[in-house]
């Protein structure tokens, strides 16, 4: 309800980034998320120590694009691996080895496979980082003390100020009605 003045980073010039509300349990959070979704705030998110089943639907998130990125990575790895080996042994230096033909594809399979996996793995991890905009060491939320609980046992929901028809006091009121027991205004210091 009242702006937390203990927050050391808040100075008068700082502007409101969003409203953060803490909930009791995953179930409470998921209900709240559904309501917020229905309210039509497009910029909101929930925060929890672990992924909560059904939260994606509750928030109305579209399925992740990650698989496509991984597919591309894998495809590249595969063609690169096979291409490299073929070029090396048929073009770069024609060496007769154990009386085998220059293009002995049977022997190229293992390395091709390994490179495919390697590049898919890179695509997966770095794709995920990209989609999540990570690493992002600074975020306004970190300025909120109580938010530290989020990685232990805290369940939060935040509506960001640049959502359409965001009105600070109105939002606080709504969240309270959803069963939030501790509401704070998150400020982004300039």
């Amino acid at each position, binding site marked *: 309800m009242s702006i937390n003045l203990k927050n050391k980073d808040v100075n008068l010039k700082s502007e409101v980034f969003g409203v953060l509300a803490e909930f009791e349990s995953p179930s409470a959070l998921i209900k709240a998320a559904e309501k917020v979704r229905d309210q039509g705030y497009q910029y909101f998110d929930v925060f929890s120590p672990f992924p909560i089943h059904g939260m994606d639907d509750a928030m109305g998130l579209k399925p*992740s694009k990650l*698989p496509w990125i991984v597919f591309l990575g894998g495809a590249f790895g595969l063609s690169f691996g096979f291409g490299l*080996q073929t070029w090396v042994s048929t073009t770069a*230096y024609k060496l007769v080895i154990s009386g085998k033909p220059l293009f002995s594809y049977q022997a*190229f399979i293992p390395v091709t496979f390994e490179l495919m996996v390697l590049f898919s793995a890179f695509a997966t991890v770095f794709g995920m980082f990209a989609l999540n905009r990570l690493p992002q060491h600074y975020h306004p939320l970190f300025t909120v003390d109580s938010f530290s609980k989020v990685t232990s*046992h805290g369940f939060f929901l935040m509506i960001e100020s640049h959502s359409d028809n965001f009105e600070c006091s109105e939002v606080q009121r709504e969240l309270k009605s959803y069963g939030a027991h501790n509401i704070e205004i998150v400020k982004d210091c300039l």
Partner: protein
Amino acid sequence: MSVVDQEINRVSLVKDNLDFQQLTDLVAKPSETKTPKWWFIALAVSLSGILLLKSMLAYLFWEGVGIWGLNNPVGWGYAIVNFVFWVGIGHAGTLISAILFLFRQDWRTGINRFAEAMTIFAVICALIFPGVHIGRQWLAYWLFPLPNSMAMWPNFRSPLLWDVFAVSTYFTVSLLFWYVGLIPDLATFRDRAKTALKSKIYGIFALGWRGANRHWQHYEKAYLLLAALATPLVLSVHSIVSFDFAVSQLPGWHTTIFPPYFVAGAVFSGFAMVVTLMVLTRELFGMKQVMTLHHLECMNKIILVTGMMVGYAYGMEFFMAWYSVYEYESFAFINRATGPYAWAYWIMVSCNVISPQLFWFKKCRTSIPIMFVVSIFVNIGMWFERFVITVTSLHRDFLPSSWDYYSPTWVDVATFVGSFGLFFTLFLLFLKFLPIVAIAEVKMILPQANPHHGDNHEH
């Protein structure tokens, strides 16, 4: 509803139903409380192991591989045996986190972090050996396809080169997998940090994770995909390691059964190593509530199964040797069991096939001392398996004129011992400074993590 719930957690994977916060406290305790004395002693010991390893390698680089016991028929000895041994151990982690994840085996969550760490350290130890066992170590970079003024390229038909790619890929992917899993828990440590420095350091590696669900969404997808990738990978790695032998001509090496046989063996030894370490850790760090007896029992069941598979492979090899009516093949195996290296062969059999049979009995499966001893036996046995395969096949092959006997030198042994020093140093640091248990994942499988958990109590 409630019925389903009870069905899901018929065995509680976490003892004395801890809540989220208690769980966090429990896992974070080792890194926050004062370090026990035994830790420093253990660290000192393993550091001296590293010193030993370093000096042995220096000696090796200076003098050449002649300081090892290798000779003319036996071109591969300890170095390769140790390599395969460590790689084998390095299979448990990824297997637990990937395959068991795909099979939705919730009990994995208690131990996967721990097992993955062990995997990575084992693979690091393994990676040392292929690099240094060659004659001119300073030219090892020729193994990689780098453009050069000689216009020369590696030979992609060589199983050894496949190995280079397989193991390095495996290491990279396991590392990524492990790190991705670590991110949320590093964030936890960051937020619990008592000092600015700690919070800074953990903060850097936590990459600013804040548990947002929009992140969790991609994160879970990524984790799933990694698991899906790691599963064929973990199977391929030891298959390819086995190609080093299977693709050759030698009777005793040239066998189609090798890939599955090696993978089974790898899992076998890996799980044994996990059990050994887990038994210690849960005692020393009081992780009993998370790493429960139930976990250990599951592990032991798998050890029993894979042990049987390995035993089956041993038998099968002999059958094929007999069935092939190929004198060289049959001799190779008769020589294994009765030749100059029979001692090694029978150590292998008794450790790998006989000792795990104890796990048929629940008493043994769930008795800490027994499982500890057996797991160590299995590790010994698996080392000897590699020794038997490598050395006995080489020392007596086609032409009796070139038969000879291989015996390691003190340098061989010291190098092997040293590699354990490296392994345990890394492991101790891990125990002290990183979350031993995947906190977030364990929380997921707590009953109260279920969004409908609350409802049951309301009615």
